[in-house]
């Protein structure tokens, strides 16, 4: 900046001086933290509005949620200002979203994923809300809504079970019976293969569906507690109990649909719509693929068969979606009112009217308008001794996405290399769980 001096001996600044001047300015500019840009948007808390970050970007849930908020406004006079983001983008950005200036309330999932943000202090405890709504939910749901510190952080809205789906007409035509034990399941697969059916429809292109099969075999064989320990990083993947899960899975693999690594679950479901596949282990959202009413009425399901009499069929995998409160909501009293409303059976019923592939989390919701499939799903969930979420909801998402997804795909392609795979998973798990 010495350049301003008049009468500088050099008639023009040398190239270097000039560059240095610019460089200095640049350095100065870089010193200003760019991050300050993401401050408060300026809107001071409006006592009549609650803001809500939503991942319900699909048409059906988006409309269903909008109807809930409209009903809430009628009842309380409070407006819910919804900020909808694409479902996957919402998940990818949740980290920075919650650290920035999040909305007062946001859509999220129960389980470890909820507890993670609670323990990082990115969510507010809502015990005051649960004092009011506690009576609406069964114990399993209460357990699901608590953080590791024992406080409530979550209001569940709906849930859906994972089970083995089949078509009644196909079972009738061939005289199949619903298997209740592992041996019966294997025998049924054999029979179906002989009858020219694909015994088990399967797809793993998106890498998560295989986790569902692992979960089922694992908690049937080793029980709910072991599932929790394993997902929490406490039990070892080299434990013979885990090896047994893969051994059983390998026994069933020859009956799975060919070419699953290149197929999405929607395509796999289509083989069942076309009656080419006998069974499909998936969440009840598989019903969305049955667009023809006659086909949908033909769809039924049964719980994964018993593998160990000590545990029977006491565990049901039932991922649950709902709401959480961000770390410093602007309109606290409004948030409490909204969550109390979302915890009522009335709110759930509004949602279920629009989306019939799921069931209410509340035990008080009116089930009279349920389809046969929904009724059965509801019974299965409310009768369960323990509810699991899903591998990537019950464990650290970084572990499941970077280690388990590729790991399970590797197993599916080479079922014989289980030992090496399991010790590799265990080694990677240790580093990841040690990191935080």
């Amino acid at each position, binding site marked *: 900046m010495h350049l301003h001096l008049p009468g500088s*001996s050099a008639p*023009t600044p040398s190239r270097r*001086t000039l560059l240095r001047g610019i460089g200095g300015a640049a350095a100065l500019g870089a010193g200003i933290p760019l991050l300050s840009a993401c401050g408060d948007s300026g809107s001071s808390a409006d006592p009549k509005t609650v803001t809500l970050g939503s991942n319900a970007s699909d048409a059906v849930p988006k409309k269903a949620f909008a109807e809930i908020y409209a009903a809430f406004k009628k009842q309380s006079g409070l407006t819910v200002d919804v900020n909808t983001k694409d479902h996957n983008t919402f998940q990818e950005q949740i*980290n920075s979203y919650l*650290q920035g200036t999040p909305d007062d309330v946001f859509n999220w999932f129960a389980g470890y994923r909820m507890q993670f943000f609670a323990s990082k202090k990115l969510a507010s405890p809502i015990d005051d809300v649960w004092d009011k709504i506690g009576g609406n939910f069964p114990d399993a749901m209460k357990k699901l809504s608590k953080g590791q510190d024992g406080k409530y952080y979550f209001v569940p809205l709906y849930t859906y079970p994972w089970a083995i789906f089949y078509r009644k007409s196909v079972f009738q035509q061939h005289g199949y019976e619903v298997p209740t034990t592992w041996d019966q399941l294997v025998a049924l697969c054999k029979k179906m293969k002989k009858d020219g059916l694909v015994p088990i429809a399967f797809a793993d*292109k998106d890498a998560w569906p295989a986790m569902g099969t692992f979960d089922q075999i694992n908690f049937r064989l080793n029980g709910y507690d072991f599932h929790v320990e394993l997902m929490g990083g406490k039990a070892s993947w080299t434990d013979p109990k885990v090896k047994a899960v893969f051994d059983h899975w390998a026994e069933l693999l020859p009956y799975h649909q060919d070419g699953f690594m*290149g197929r999405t679950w929607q395509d796999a479901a289509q083989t069942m719509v076309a009656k080419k596949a006998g069974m499909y282990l998936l969440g009840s959202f598989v019903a969305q693929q049955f667009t023809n009413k006659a086909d949908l009425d033909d769809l039924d399901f049964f719980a994964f068969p018993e593998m160990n009499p000590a545990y029977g069929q006491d565990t049901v995998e039932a991922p649950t979606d709902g709401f959480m409160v961000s770390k410093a909501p602007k309109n606290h009293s409004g948030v409490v009112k909204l969550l109390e409303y979302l915890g009522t059976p009335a709110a759930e019923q509004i949602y279920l009217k629009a989306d019939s592939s799921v069931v209410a989390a509340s035990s008080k919701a009116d089930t009279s308008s349920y389809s046969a499939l929904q009724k059965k799903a509801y019974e299965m969930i409310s009768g369960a001794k323990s509810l699991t979420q899903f591998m990537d909801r019950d464990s650290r998402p970084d572990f499941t996405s970077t280690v388990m997804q*590729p790991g399970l795909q590797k197993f599916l392609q080479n079922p014989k290399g289980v030992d090496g795979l399991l010790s590799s998973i265990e080694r990677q798990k240790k580093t990841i769980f040690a*990191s935080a």
Partner: protein
Amino acid sequence: MTAETDTKTPEAAAVPPPGPAHEQKAAPRGRRRLLTRRDRITLALMAGVPTVLHVALVWVTAFASIALAFTTWDGIGFDSIKWVGLDNFRELFTNNPQFWPAVQHNIIWFVVLILVPTPMGLFLAVQLDKRIRFSRVYQTAFFLPVVVSLAVTGFVWQLVYNPDTGLINSLVGANKPGHYIDWIGDPHLNLWAVLIAASWRHTGYMMILYLAGLKGVDPSLREASALDGANEWQTFKSVIFPTLRPTNTVVLVVTIIEALRAFDLVFVFNKGAQGTELLSILITNNIIGESSRIGYGSAIAVVLLVISLAVIIPYLIATFRKERRA
């Protein structure tokens, strides 16, 4: 360097010259100064703003990710950054089952691109350069894949490769139980399947580069070789191809870059599952998401950076040496 040592250092230039007489003399010359105050402000803004952005978005982030490669961080609050030294790299080199396949696939990617679509592109360019009929139409047809985004290319090729409903399996009947070809899932097939799609696009890209190179070839060279009685192949081999040397350098660099940044096609194709792992995808999978492994992902990014530098630095040195000689 030597040429500049005799110009004054900035400090020296900044010292006001002694003596008022000198100052008076200098005053009228000041008007002839190249830059007025306004020019300088303009210049500072024009050069300064991009520099600030460049430094902030390129250099600061690059150094930040190098630094983060030696830490673990879940992206939540700066106080959760923990220094772990070389642990991430140790983990990566010894424990990550996807890392070495990814490196290998990036190399295969480069080798295939240089061996298949590059000669194809050259061949097409030579043919089109002959001004055959409908040359523009062919040119457009071959170049079209380059214009389309790679993500879209991925979607299109998925329709071809889909194991149940895709074009190939439907035509050859390989979508029935028993005889099934899983183009996307089979680890022995999927990399090659996706490389065909990548080559399909790369050929057009190479064709345009070579076509531009060929337009620059002096027509008198062709005439001369024709007069000397060389046939077409001889002319190409001994006359045309050697003049394409600068183009070849560009082609090599472009292909290396394409191989290192390969990402979108595979990400759309099967997200880098078994058989198609790539470094860029490993980075993305580790960094993006709910509870990200930012330190670990940065370590993979550093590996990719080192590989890129190992390729780019020799190229830059060679280029600058040539320029200085010229």
